[in-house]
C-alpha cells in the first residue's frame, strides 16, 4: 500500500481493495514505527486523519467520491491548519494553534483528501538542508547520514520513505525542487500566482509558491488541479481557469524543443549529476525531442539578487512575531523593548536571525538603492533571460541541484549553503514553473532533473515529466529504508 502512487491508490480505493481508513491506519502505523529515525513530521494528526478517512469512505459508499477522495497526504508545517499546531519549524510558533485553514488546506479538504499531519521544515522555510528546524534535522531515507534537502525536507523524506504517498511543500528559492531531487521524488513549483498563498506562512511574499511533492508527475497533476485556482483572499493569486492537468499527460513529445542553459552545466556541477542529466536528455531525444544549447546570461546574479530581495521581504514579514498577539513571549519582560528583543531572540533560530538582519540592513537608509532597487532591476534582467529563452525552446532542462544530497552537518558556512540553490533560485525570481524529476543516482543518493517552462505552462511540464516517467523507472525506485522496516 505504501508503495503506490496516488493514481494507483485511487484505483484501489475505487475497486474496494481497501478502504481509506485501512490505508490511513497503515500509514499512521508506519509513521509511528519509522519516523523516529527520519523526523519528517512535526505533528501527526491521528484523530483528524481517521475521521477524514471515515468521511471519505462514507462518501465513496454513497457514490459521491471524487478523484482524490480518501487519499492521504501530508502538509508542510507552513500551512495554517485550523485547531492544529502550525509552527513553520520555529520555536516562535511552538504554541500556535491556528484559528483558520489556509486556502490550499481548504481546497485539499474539499477534494476529500486525508491529511496525516504536518511535516518538518527549515524554520520559516529558510534553508536548503532541513537542518534549520527548531524540531531537529530531518534525515534522508536513502541515506540517513545525508540531508533530505530543504526547506520542504520533511515532506520529501516522508514521501520517499513511504510514510505518505504525497505531500504539499512550498518553494521560495528551490524548497520543493531541491528536496524532491535529494529524496528521489517528483516535485512541482507552479507559476507564481497559480496557487493561493493565503494561510501559507510568508517567508518572501513575491517568491513563495506552494506545490505538490509526490511519486510521479501524474500525481503532481492530480494534486495541482485540486490546489490551484483563484482566491479572493490573495491579491497576487491570478484569476485564471484551472485546466485538467492530467489531460495532456499522454501527449507525445515528438517535436518538443528542449533548451539546455549553458550556465547550468558549468563549474561546480558534480560529474555524476551532470552524467545523469545528460542521460535523461538522451531519453528525451529518443522520444522525439530536439535539444539545443541556450544561454541565461544573468544566472550568476540570481543568488546575490535573491539574498537581497528574499531577506528584505522576510525581515518585514517576520515583524509580526512580536510576542503580543500570538507566538512566543519571553518571561517577565522588563519593558516593551525587552519584550520585543527577548521574545524574538528566543523565538527565532540562527538562520532566521541572519536573514532578518541582512534584510533590515539592506533596506535601511542609505543602502536601499544600492541593494534593494539594484536587486529588483537585476530581477527583471533574470526574468527577461527566461522569456528570451522560451522564444526559442519549449522547455529548459538541467540539474535541480549541483550535487546530490550532502552529508548532515557538512555545510557550516551560510554562503556555501546558499550556493546550493544556484539552479533553482532564478526560477522564483522569474516566477516561472519548475519541476524536479528523479533521473538517476550517485551511489545511493538520488539525482533530480529540473524541467522549466514559461509562465502557466504547468500542463506542458507535467506532460514532459510524465513521458519521461513512462520511459524510465527512476521514479519507481524506493529506498531500502522503506522496505526493510516495513
Amino acid at each position, binding site marked *: 500500500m505504501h508503495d503506490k502512487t496516488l493514481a494507483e491508490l485511487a484505483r484501489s480505493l475505487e475497486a474496494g481493495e481497501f478502504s481509506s481508513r485501512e490505508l490511513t491506519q497503515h500509514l499512521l502505523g508506519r509513521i509511528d514505527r519509522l519516523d523516529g529515525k527520519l523526523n519528517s513530521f512535526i505533528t501527526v494528526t491521528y484523530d483528524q486523519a481517521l475521521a477524514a478517512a471515515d468521511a471519505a469512505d462514507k462518501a465513496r459508499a454513497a457514490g459521491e467520491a471524487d478523484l482524490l477522495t480518501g487519499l492521504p497526504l501530508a502538509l508542510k508545517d507552513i500551512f495554517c491548519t485550523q485547531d492544529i499546531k502550525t509552527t513553520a519549524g520555529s520555536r516562535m510558533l511552538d504554541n*500556535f494553534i491556528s484559528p483558520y485553514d489556509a486556502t490550499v488546506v481548504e481546497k485539499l479538504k474539499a477534494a476529500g483528501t486525508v491529511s496525516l499531519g504536518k511535516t518538518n521544515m527549515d524554520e520559516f522555510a529558510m534553508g536548503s538542508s532541513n537542518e534549520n528546524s527548531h524540531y531537529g534535522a530531518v534525515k534522508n531515507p536513502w541515506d540517513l547520514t545525508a540531508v533530505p534537502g530543504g526547506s520542504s525536507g520533511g515532506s520529501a523524506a516522508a514521501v520517499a520513505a513511504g510514510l505518505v504517498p504525497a505531500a504539499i511543500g512550498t518553494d521560495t528559492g528551490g524548497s520543493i525542487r531541491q528536496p524532491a531531487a535529494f529524496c528521489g521524488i517528483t516535485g512541482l513549483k507552479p507559476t507564481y500566482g497559480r496557487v493561493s498563498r493565503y494561510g501559507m506562512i510568508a517567508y518572501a511574499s513575491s517568491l513563495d509558491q506552494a506545490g505538490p511533492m509526490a511519486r510521479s508527475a501524474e500525481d503532481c497533476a492530480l494534486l495541482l488541479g485540486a490546489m490551484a485556482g483563484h482566491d479572493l483572499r490573495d491579491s497576487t493569486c*491570478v484569476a485564471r481557469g484551472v485546466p485538467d492537468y492530467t489531460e495532456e499527460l499522454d501527449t507525445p513529445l515528438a517535436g518538443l524543443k528542449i533548451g539546455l542553459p549553458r550556465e547550468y552545466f558549468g563549474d561546480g556541477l558534480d560529474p555524476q549529476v551532470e552524467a545523469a542529466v545528460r542521460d535523461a536528455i538522451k531519453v528525451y531525444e529518443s522520444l522525439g525531442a530536439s535539444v539545443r544549447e541556450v544561454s541565461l546570461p544573468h544566472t550568476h546574479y540570481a543568488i546575490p539578487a535573491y539574498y537581497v530581495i528574499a531577506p528584505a521581504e522576510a525581515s518585514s514579514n517576520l515583524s509580526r512575531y512580536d510576542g503580543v498577539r500570538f507566538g512566543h513571549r519571553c518571561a517577565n519582560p522588563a519593558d516593551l523593548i525587552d519584550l520585543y528583543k527577548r521574545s524574538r531572540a528566543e523565538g527565532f533560530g540562527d538562520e532566521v536571525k541572519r536573514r532578518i538582519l541582512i534584510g*533590515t540592513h539592506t533596506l535601511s537608509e542609505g543602502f536601499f538603492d544600492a541593494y534593494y532597487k539594484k536587486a529588483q532591476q537585476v530581477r527583471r534582467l533574470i526574468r527577461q533571460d527566461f522569456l528570451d529563452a522560451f522564444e526559442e525552446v519549449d522547455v529548459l532542462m538541467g540539474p535541480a541541484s549541483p550535487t546530490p544530497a550532502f552529508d548532515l552537518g557538512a555545510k557550516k558556512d551560510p554562503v556555501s549553503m546558499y550556493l546550493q540553490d544556484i539552479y533553482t533560485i532564478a526560477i522564483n525570481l522569474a516566477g516561472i514553473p519548475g519541476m524536479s524529476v528523479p533521473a538517476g543516482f550517485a551511489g545511493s543518493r538520488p539525482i533530480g532533473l529540473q524541467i522549466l517552462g514559461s509562465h502557466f505552462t504547468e500542463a506542458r511540464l507535467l506532460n514532459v515529466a510524465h513521458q519521461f516517467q513512462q520511459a524510465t523507472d527512476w521514479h519507481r525506485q524506493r529506498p531500502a529504508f522503506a522496505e526493510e522496516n516495513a
Partner: protein
Amino acid sequence: MALEHADVQRAAHLARLGLTDDEAARYVDDLGRILEMVDMLQGLDTEGVAPLAHPLDVTQRLRADEVTESDQRSCFQRCAPAVENGLYLVPRVVE
C-alpha cells in the same frame, strides 16, 4: 560595502532582535560574507532597467466594500500570551 559591528547592532535594534556581543560579532562575520557575495550585483550595469517587484505583470484586484468578517475574538485570543477584558496586554508604554 563593508559591514561594521555598529551596522549589525543597528539592524538588530531596528529589527528588535536581542543579540549578545558574541552573537553580534559572529553576525558581523556572516553578514559580511553574504554582503560580499551580494556586492557582485554592483558590477552589473542596470542603467535604465525598471525594478521588478512582482514576477507577473498583473495589477491589483479590488474587493467590494462589504463586511464579511464576524467577531472571533475569543477564538483569536486563545493563542495570545496575555489578554484582559479583551485587550492584548503589553508592558506599559510610556508616551
